Each structure stands twice: as structure tokens, then as C-alpha cells.
């Protein structure tokens, strides 16, 4: 039932009628012709109805707080409640973004220190916290690459190279920044095809976007050679930080030769995903791109107080990316997370994320599943391909995914990266226990059995959720994007 179906004309949550003391909310006659005459069309419900409706709706979601959620490339790990509490202190929640710096030293201190931590973990020279998600971080990074070449008068560099395994945001970003995308093939072993790269790299190359470990769940072993190749051709290297969780404290993108990167704090720094955001995608840069960082960033004045840096301080900035200063509340959570972990804790993130992934990969292999890159170490994630199951039992990766829901596990990422057929990209993260992983393997083993003996059970799954499999085709064909009230 929709909240609108609880609505009755004239019903109200009266405690939310907010006329301020001493202020009469008389009619706004002075607005004249600007006055709205049509109904607002919001639901009219009681406070209990709202609380009950959304409490019950929430129970229809899977969530990290409820179950294992091994969504590859998404890093669904525990979101510390302590970080949430820290960011929810009234002084922070009520701070207006345009409050004078003198009244903002608390927030600025956190942001300043976070910039430093992020430089440290990535091996970069400078950081801007303003991008509001990974994709916006990518935008900022690629826009800086463009600004760099333009500043140098290097106007022919119109191409961005992207390995074919890349996340969709990479090519989409390159296009948003006005570049042409060239895809680079990936070898059977999951590495970039170096010959293919060398064949396309050249004076038109503005840069290469990649992530390492790659979205194939393996570490790109030739990274130094790739970096040299691109750099020699005059291009820059962009690091998509979505996979930073795999290497936190182990290798730094800056040391691998990357010139610019974004981080997904909502992944590596454990801020909650919120059912689709908010995220935060700070960018880090080496010396060459530092002059182009998006504003604002935080600096320290000579007297030790913190202040905002804007286009006056960074004249070549690509500019502003958000109305104010990015998803500050998420940055506070990430800052809190960094403080809780400390340097030692950070080092262990990559270690245990990798341990869990390799253990799970090995266990699934033993249960009869086919790994996409069996000869490789798993990183923080790995790929299982169900091509054979799809061919012989006609049970697809999507069927396996849906059936997992019945067992109370969220499904891994399906059909990504696109180059591996019928794949599941599985990322357990470091905050899951061995027992939880073993439970998942047991379910997968069972489903494999079902696929052999009773495939219909799997192909018509899920069976125990609020709805059965949904008709996506109808959704796109008979578009119903807003409730039409029966007046």
C-alpha cells in the first residue's frame, strides 16, 4: 500500500504545524499573482501512519545491518554506528555551509585532517573533498586532465583510454568531459592487453582510466609498464578508487604511477550506502594536477586556524562541483572511521578483505563453481562464471542471484564486468566472519544442487520475498512513474 492510499482529505500530523511563536502565519496576500492556486498533492496522513508505513516499508529491504551483502565492486561492509553518531552531533548538523570560518573551526579541522589522511593512504600530493560520489570524483579527475593539457596548449589530446572491464562510469565520465573513449581489451588472465594499449596510445591520448585491482578482481601486474607507456606518450593516469579497499595500507596508487584518482569513501571508508547514496568521491592528485583541484578545499592559515581555499588560492581550478562543499556529513563519517581505525587498522582492511575473498573463492571452487581467473590470486573480490550452468542446466547467473535471496543472502553483482559471461562478482569485505562466509558457501552449494536436480526452483526464484520476480519489460513499456490519485 502506498502512503497515498492512507491519505484522507484534511487528515494531518498536527504536531508538525509549526507556526513560530509570535509570528502569525496570515495569508500571503502580498504575493498576488504568484500565489499557488492548485493543490499541493501531498499525502494527508497521521504521524502514526507515517511511522508505521515507513517502518514496515523498511522491513522489505535487505541491508548490511541484516545480512551478508557480497555485492562486488560495492564494498558492502559494516558502517560503524559510532561514525554515524559523530556526524550527527547537533553542532555539526546545524552548521550552515556559509557560516564564517571563525564559527566553523570544528568542521574545518576534521576536513583538513581528512585531506591529509587521504593523501597519505593514496600517495598523492593534494586532495579535494568536494566531489559528491565516485562518478563526480571521476568527473573532477578527468576534467583536471583536460585542463592540464589545455593549459599546456596540448589541444590534440582528445582520447581517453579505458580497459573494457571498466565500470560504466569511466566511459560515461570521459564523454561528459568532452573526450572520445577508446576501449582496451583485457587478456584471458584479466590483465590489460599491453600490445593493444601500445597500439592505440599516442599523441591523441589524454589519459588512461583504470582501477587496480581491476574489476576482474585481480591485480594488474604490469601496472608499472602501463604507467610508463602512457606517460611516455604524454598521457596521464587516472585511478578509479572504487577498489581501494583491496589495497589499503598495501600499495598506494601514487606509487603505482597514477596522477589522479578518486576514492569512494562510501565504500572504502565505510559510510553507509543509504539505499543509493549519498556517497563521497574525493579526488587526489600528484604535483602536476594540483593546480587544477576543484574548490573549495581546506587550508591552514599562519595562525593555525583553518580556512577555505577557493579560486583566489587555486586560480587554475576546474571550479566548483557542488552548491557548497560536497557531502560534508559523509566526510565527517569517513574522518571518524579513519580515526577509529588508525594507521594499523587501515593496514588490516586490505589484508582481511583479501583473506576473505580468497577463502570464499577457494571454498566456492571446491563446491564446484568455476572461477573466471582460477590461476590468479583473488584480491578483495573475484568472479565466478556460470556459463556452463547456463548452457547445460539453463540456469543463469541471474537465477542463482535471485535464489540466493531466498536463502537470506543478498546476491553478488551480476553481469559485471561485461567481458565475463554469466558472471557473479563477489566481494565479501573484511567485516564478515568466517562463519558468515561458510554459511554463504553452504547456500551456494545447495543452490548448485537445486540447479542440477530441480532447476525450476532456481529459475523462478525468489519465492520467499515480498514480491516474486518482477516484470522489468512491462516496467519500461507501460511507464508508471508516479501514482495517479483516484480523486
Amino acid at each position: 500500500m502506498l502512503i497515498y492510499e492512507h491519505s484522507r482529505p484534511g487528515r494531518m500530523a498536527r504536531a508538525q504545524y509549526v507556526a513560530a511563536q509570535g509570528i502569525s502565519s496570515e495569508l500571503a496576500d502580498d504575493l498576488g499573482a504568484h500565489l499557488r492556486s492548485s493543490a499541493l498533492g501531498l499525502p494527508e496522513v497521521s504521524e502514526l501512519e507515517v511511522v508505521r508505513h515507513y517502518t514496515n516499508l523498511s522491513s522489505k529491504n535487505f541491508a548490511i545491518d541484516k545480512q551478508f551483502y557480497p555485492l562486488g565492486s560495492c564494498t558492502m561492509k559494516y558502517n560503524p554506528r559510532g561514525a554515524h553518531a559523530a556526524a550527527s552531533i547537533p553542532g555539526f548538523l546545524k552548521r550552515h555551509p556559509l557560516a564564517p570560518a571563525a564559527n566553523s573551526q570544528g568542521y574545518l579541522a576534521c576536513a583538513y585532517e581528512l585531506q591529509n589522511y587521504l593523501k597519505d593512504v593514496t600517495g598523492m600530493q593534494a586532495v579535494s573533498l568536494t566531489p559528491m560520489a565516485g562518478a563526480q570524483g571521476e568527473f573532477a579527475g578527468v576534467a583536471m586532465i583536460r585542463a592540464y593539457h589545455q593549459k599546456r596548449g596540448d589541444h590534440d589530446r582528445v582520447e581517453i583510454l579505458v580497459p573494457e572491464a571498466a565500470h560504466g562510469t569511466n566511459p560515461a565520465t570521459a564523454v561528459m568531459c568532452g573526450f572520445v573513449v577508446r576501449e582496451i581489451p583485457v587478456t584471458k588472465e584479466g590483465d590489460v592487453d599491453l600490445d593493444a594499449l601500445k597500439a592505440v596510445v599516442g599523441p591523441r591520448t589524454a589519459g588512461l582510466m583504470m582501477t587496480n585491482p581491476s574489476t576482474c578482481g585481480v591485480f594488474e601486474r604490469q601496472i608499472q609498464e602501463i604507467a610508463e607507456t602512457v606517460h611516455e606518450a604524454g598521457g596521464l593516469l587516472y585511478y578509479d578508487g572504487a577498489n581501494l579497499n583491496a589495497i589499503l595500507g598495501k600499495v598506494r596508487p601514487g606509487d603505482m604511477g597514477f596522477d589522479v584518482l578518486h576514492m569512494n569513501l562510501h565504500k572504502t571508508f565505510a559510510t553507509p550506502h543509504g539505499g543509493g547514496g549519498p556517497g563521497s568521491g574525493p579526488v587526489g592528485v600528484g604535483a602536476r594536477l594540483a593546480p587544477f583541484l576543484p574548490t573549495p578545499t581546506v587550508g591552514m592559515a599562519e595562525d593555525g586556524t583553518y580556512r577555505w581555499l577557493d579560486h583566489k588560492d587555486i586560480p587554475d581550478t576546474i571550479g566548483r562541483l557542488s552548491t557548497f562543499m560536497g557531502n560534508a556529513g559523509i566526510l565527517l563519517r569517513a574522518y571518524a572511521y579513519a580515526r577509529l581505525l588508525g594507521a594499523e587498522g587501515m593496514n588490516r582492511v586490505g589484508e582481511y578483505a583479501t583473506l576473505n575473498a580468497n577463502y570464499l573463492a577457494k571454498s566456492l571452487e571446491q563446491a564446484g563453481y568455476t572461477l573466471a581467473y582460477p590461476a590468479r590470486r583473488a584480491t578483495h573480490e573475484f568472479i565466478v562464471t556460470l556459463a556452463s550452468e547456463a548452457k547445460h542446466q539453463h540456469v543463469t547467473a541471474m537465477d542463482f542471484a535471485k535464489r540466493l535471496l531466498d536463502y537470506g543472502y543478498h546476491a553478488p553483482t551480476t553481469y559485471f564486468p561485461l567481458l565475463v559471461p554469466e558472471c557473479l562478482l563477489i566481494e565479501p569485505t573484511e567485516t564478515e566472519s568466517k562463519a558468515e562466509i561458510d554459511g554463504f558457501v553452504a547456500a551456494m552449494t545447495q543452490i548448485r544442487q537445486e540447479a542440477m536436480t530441480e532447476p525450476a526452483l532456481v529459475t523462478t526464484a525468489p519465492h520467499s520475498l515480498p514480491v516474486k520476480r518482477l516484470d522489468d519489460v512491462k516496467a519500461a513499456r507501460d511507464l508508471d512513474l508516479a501514482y495517479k490519485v483516484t480523486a
Partner: protein
Amino acid sequence: MPFIPHTASDEQEMLGAIGVPNIDALFDEIPKNLRAATLSEVPAGISEMALQRLMNQRARLDEVALSFLGAGAYEHHIPAAVWDLVGRGEFMTAYTPYQAEASQGTLQLIYEFQTMMTRLTAMDVANASVYDGATALAEAMLMAVRANKSNKSNRVVVAGNLNPNYHAVCHTIVKNQGLILDVLAHDPATGCLPGAVEAALEGAAALVISYPNFFGGLDDVDYLTDSAASAGALVIGVVNPTALALIKPPGEWGTRGADIAVGEGQPLGIPLASGGPYLGFMCCRQQFVRQMPGRIIGRTVDQTGKPGYTLTLQAREQHIRRGKATSNICTNQGLLVTAATIYMSLLGNEGLRQVALTAHSGTNALTNLACQIDGVTARFSGPVFHERVLSLPVDASLVVEKMAAHGVLPGLALGDWVTGMDDCLLVNVTETKTAADIACFARLLAEVIEEVKATC
């Protein structure tokens, strides 16, 4: 390792199963010379207790007693139920609803959000949010240029009284795709756009109108919309959702309404929180839905015919279309959509109207009181929504500095924002301000003006 559950024996068993002697061996594919130096900037870990204390101390530094700052982010009362519900793990710790059957909570909620936004704006369809108001506008510009089939222009005419930060963000984002932003200067006497815009609109792909504008003023949206329509330009309305409880929704501007409506969702139950996370909303005519970026939820049925909700029109999105997508946006502002949806449900029609009306009355009251101070006048005289520019007899930034030292943020000094407005203060009043607050503002303002005068 605060959140890692592994015991020593777990670790041993797991390493044994993998067949490696220790965790380090799992990193053997990484070239040795790349292995990281230890972190030098990240301090040692602290307990949650120590963190809480530290953060309490810092947050305290940022507290103010009273604030009249607006300029794009507004202090509203947020019903307690909103964040009690939003903070539920089921909403907060879920991912984007890719597995629809396991995400009906979030999906239905977004469908409800889309419904509410279309009604509030009187538009046909809404998306599931983009980052914030400014990026919503940037996306709307790109969208309008793609969608406008009547001309091939890449020129967007932007109201000069648009929030300068919105303009800056749009510039950053759209310039790479070759869009040209032409500013349509506002009349310095009224703060509103001029009465004749036909020439400026000629050959433009779109016109951006801010309603209310940056100064709180209300432009003649009917005229502007109709003029744009005649010129073959699409109309993008940048609107404040609270204001729409009182003033004309973009879908009803002029003869045919705006084509795209965007804005900042922050006023709908989202705390100021240093500027984010907020949410940008986008609505448009049905005919443009396939040009709209961001996630869109559709209602459909399951195998048994039961209604359910799912991500739809994904062929617009980067994970399907990659370089050909309408935008690169992926993660958006889901949790804030949750907050806004619950906020709008709790307020309802009459509740939101009261918020708007109270803010409006308070703004008028403040204007009247402030203008009794010697040398203080209203910079523009037309009607406003909950924000007004006061012209002061002294430099406004000095006034802000001195009032802030008393714990009162009187508004935004416009000197750094709009040339020639060094004496101007942009003041916002929402329903949170009582008559006593307004009196306190006026009293302190008068005092501080005297003080500044004396020291100059």
C-alpha cells in the same frame, strides 16, 4: 582492527584452506617495489569513546545561537520521526536497489518520492535524485540541449539572479561539452529579470529561471516561460520546494509550463550539515523522460500479477549505456530522498503550507523591523519568498563578522557574491524564527551598525 571479526584460529583455518602460510602471501602478485611504506599521516586508532569526545568538542566550536543565513540552504524544523526512520539500518545500510525483490522498501519509497515531487512541481515525471541543486541544474542544461529538437543550439540563457554558486557549478560541468552559458542580467533596481527578453532568447536552447531568485525575489515566470516558448527555448525552472507550497509551481508557469524543474531538496527534512549530503531533484515533461539522467523507479507487477517496483529506463544509465549514457551519475542521494519523502508525508499539504506561510510572515516582520534602523532599507521592493536583501549603511561583511562574534549569523554579506553589493545582506527567515528571534536580530543589527560606524 575495530571491525574485523577474525580470531587467530579463524585466520589459521582460512589460510590453511587457501593454502598459503600467511596473509602477506596473498599479495604476491603485487610487484615488491610497490609495496607501501607505512602510513605517516594517519594517527593511531582511537576508541569510539575518545572519538565521541573529540567530535563533541569540535562540534561545539561550530555552534551558533541564532542564524539567518540562507542563500541556498535553509534551517527548518525537522520532525523527530524523520531521522528516526531514516536511520533504520534497513534504509541506511542498503545498496542501490539493483535486486528489486530484495529492495521493495527503498523502491516503493522512491516511487512515492517521485509522485510527491511531480505534484509539488506540477510536472509529469521525476527522477530519484541527483547530487544537489546545483548539479541538478547542470544536468538539466545538458538534458535541455539534448532534448530541444526545435533547434541545434548549445546556448543556454541563464538568469543573472541565479545563485552564483549554481552558475559556477554549471560552468564547471557543462563547459567540457561545449555548452555556452549566456547571462541574462537582472534589473539592478528590482533584482528581477528585465521586462523584455525576446532578443536574449533568440536561438537559445534553454532559459534558466530561478524562482525565487537569489535575492528572494519573484520573477514574472509566466511572461518568461511564454517568451521562451515562442523563442523555441526550453524552460528550466530552479525552484525551492518549500516555496512551492505558496507560489506557482513550474508546471503551471505561463501557458504551457516549464519543461524541466530542478532544485535543492534540502529544505525537505535535511539538516544543514555544512552543505551536504542534500539532494538535487529533477522533474520534466513526460516527453523528455528518456533524456533525464539518474535513476527512475517504475511500478510493474511480479510473476503473480502483484504490484512491485523496479529500476526502469536503465538504458539511459552508465551501467548499461556506458559512454552513451545521459550522464555519468551512479550513486545518488538515496537516503536523503528517504528523508524528504518522510518529511513530506508528515507535513502534508497544510503542514508544508504553514511552514511557507510562517516563513513568509517572519520575513516581512523582519524587514519591517530592520528598516526602522537608521540607514537600513530593503534593497528591492517586490514580493519575496523567505529571503530579502537589506541594504546597510556600512559594509555588510563587517556586520556579519561582528554579529557572528555574538553568536548570531545575520545572513550573507553579498560583497563577495555580487559586484556592487558590498552594503548588502541577504537575510533568510524560516518558520524556526520567533518574533523574539527577529527582535533580537534587529536589536543586535542596530548595535553593530553603530559600532562599525564608530570604528570607521
